[in-house]
């Protein structure tokens, strides 16, 4: 499976890929050799999604500033 950098994915694409990773991991023949790669990719995807959903202090300050 070709992997795009997580930053280039839409939120929906990231969530879909997470779903595919879960299915692969939950299948009976999940290869332990691929486990590290799966987990690393999933961690990146989750972090990116969470980053998009939430704002840092600086971003929040910037948003408030724009509103005034």
């Amino acid at each position, binding site marked *: 499976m070709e992997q795009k950098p997580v930053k280039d994915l839409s939120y929906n694409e990231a969530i879909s890929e997470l779903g595919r990773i879960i299915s692969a991991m939950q299948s009976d023949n999940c290869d332990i050799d691929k486990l590290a790669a*799966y987990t690393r990719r999933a961690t990146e995807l989750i972090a990116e999604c969470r980053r998009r959903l*939430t704002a840092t202090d600086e971003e929040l300050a910037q948003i408030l500033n724009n509103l005034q």
Partner: protein
Amino acid sequence: MHESISLAKLNRIIAERIISSPLTQNVWVTAELSDVAVRNRHCYMELLEKDANGVQIAKARGVIWANRYTELNRKLLSATGQSISSGIKLLVQVSVNMHPVYGMSMVISDLDPDYTMGDLLRRRRENIEKLKLAGVLDLNRNLEWPDIVQRIAIISAPGAAGYGDFCNQLLNNPSRLRFEPRLFPAVMQGESAPASIINALEAIANDDWWDCVVIIRGGGATSDLQCFEDYDLAYNIACFDIPVIIGIGHERDITLLDSVANMRVKTPTAAAEWLIERGDRALAALDTIAQTIFTRANGIVTGCKEQLSYYQGLLPIAPFDATRRASLRLSKAVMLLSGISSRRLIPAMSQLDVMATNLATAATTAVKRANDRLDNATSLLDALSPQAVLNRGYSITRIDGHAVTSTDQIKPGDTIETTLANGTITSIIK
């Protein structure tokens, strides 16, 4: 020259006639309002009557004096969400008045909000039907929401309390969800409101960046909702291609816009809460995914470790175990075999025993029978032997060693030998 009276006097005469007639005092009249204006806290308007085709067939000047205006306006607003304004229909109690300077006017002393409400509902139903016929009624309502809703175009009056409440609620959410709101200012009440809101919508549509539109207004029970009954505004919202949320700060009211907007909430704060809840759900979904993945990964690793340590623990005892199992198998085989032996051999052996007994009996019987037969044969033999015959007095005559059985065999002069039981006689034939 004709005799004349002054205009003032004529007006006074009219006034006296009008006021003295009970037909013109405290009469309930239905009328549509136009040119409503408030000056010096008094409310002036034109009262109209139109026929079924909308053609004006009667007109009169109306006024609500300041001492009644506030109360009547509040009465209408709290019942219908509409203020006394142009375009609405009223059932009013009027008394005709004639002022020497300003002429005739209808002084309004009371109104019946139920009539206005009924008219409002009828008009709303008509507008909804019209939107349905235009094929747009459900367009905005059926729009799918994007996965994450962050870029929020707000239509509100700048500085309005509702706008402040909304931003405050939105940007101080506990999960620190990211929202990027921007205000598109508009007039939110009065006759210019619909056009102003439509302008704001157009400005939002020019920028293909927004996830949703929130139309908000600080509320209160006495706010005027008439602009939210506007057909053109409803049409624009229905056709808008991103979801529209309406939060106009009115607990009770449903307006025409509520029938076309994707989402209706009671207050600006509720609009913010709704958006925050969506974001929180997305965050919770991420947490669930993370939990699932890490639990599964741990499970796989733990499973592999357990398998390894099982093999590891097996190594030292495996050879003994194998020997033990082999020996166990052997004893099982032996037991099985002995089981078979006892099941098969014992009956066979007892059969043999029976056969041996039978054999012995058979042999004895056979020997005895043979002996008996022998004895009989001996007796018979004894009885039939030549000696026995001789003993009974018979004799055998021989010539030249051959037994004589016929007289033809002998002639005189022959020597014959006669054997008796206990000796032999030799004779010569004569």
